[in-house]
């Protein structure tokens, strides 16, 4: 699966994208977020507070209980501030 990070999530994670296999035991977007936060210190800073992170799967906004597939493109970002 392809992961993409934007704005301060990207800065804190120290990368804008990566490819990883669907981790074992990860079923939903919320599971993935919790898994990412456990990976290392940088990722813990980026993903430590799920309440301020939003997600999109295959370029559509989704909630944290959205179920993931192996070939999904998943983006994590702060609430949007355009306009």
């Amino acid at each position, binding site marked *: 699966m392809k992961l993409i990070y*934007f704005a301060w999530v990207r800065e804190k994670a120290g990368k804008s994208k990566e490819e990883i296999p669907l981790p074992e035991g990860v079923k939903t977007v919320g599971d993935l977020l919790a898994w990412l936060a456990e990976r290392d210190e940088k990722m813990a800073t980026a993903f430590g507070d799920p309440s301020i992170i939003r997600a999109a799967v295959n370029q559509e906004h989704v909630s944290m209980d959205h179920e993931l597939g192996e070939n999904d493109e998943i983006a994590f970002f702060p609430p949007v501030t355009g*306009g």
Partner: protein
Amino acid sequence: MIRVQAEDFDMGLEISRMTRDDTAIGGVCAFAGLVRDFGDSAAGGGAMTLEHYPGMTEKALAEIEAQAKARWPLQDSLIIHRYGRLEPGDNIVLVVAASAHREAAFEACHFLIDWLKTKAPFWKLEENADGAHWVEAKSRDDAAADKWSRSEEKE
């Protein structure tokens, strides 16, 4: 029509283009968003950089425009949103709604910008004397967008 671009736009020209060949249009309502000077420009700050999610941005804006067209009898509509580094006074966004009558144009224009602010994947990085910081989303923007969700449910 939707456009996501780094280049500036000319609002007058955009509106004239929309109206000149369509005599069924009786009213046009436009909203333009600009980079506001918070007082940092004297110290060399005040600029902002807009990041976006190429691909999803276009899809989200097209969906917002389709929603407006489904809800109001529009002759035409336009959303232009810029990305990249912008200075105080620069244009950021333009939304235009054209209809036979003013009510649809006013309401659709208001809807377009309210939904865009909470659904289109853009993020603002502001520069000031202390450095750069990411703008936080405002709950009043969510409330403004929610207002349109409620009216949809009532229908």
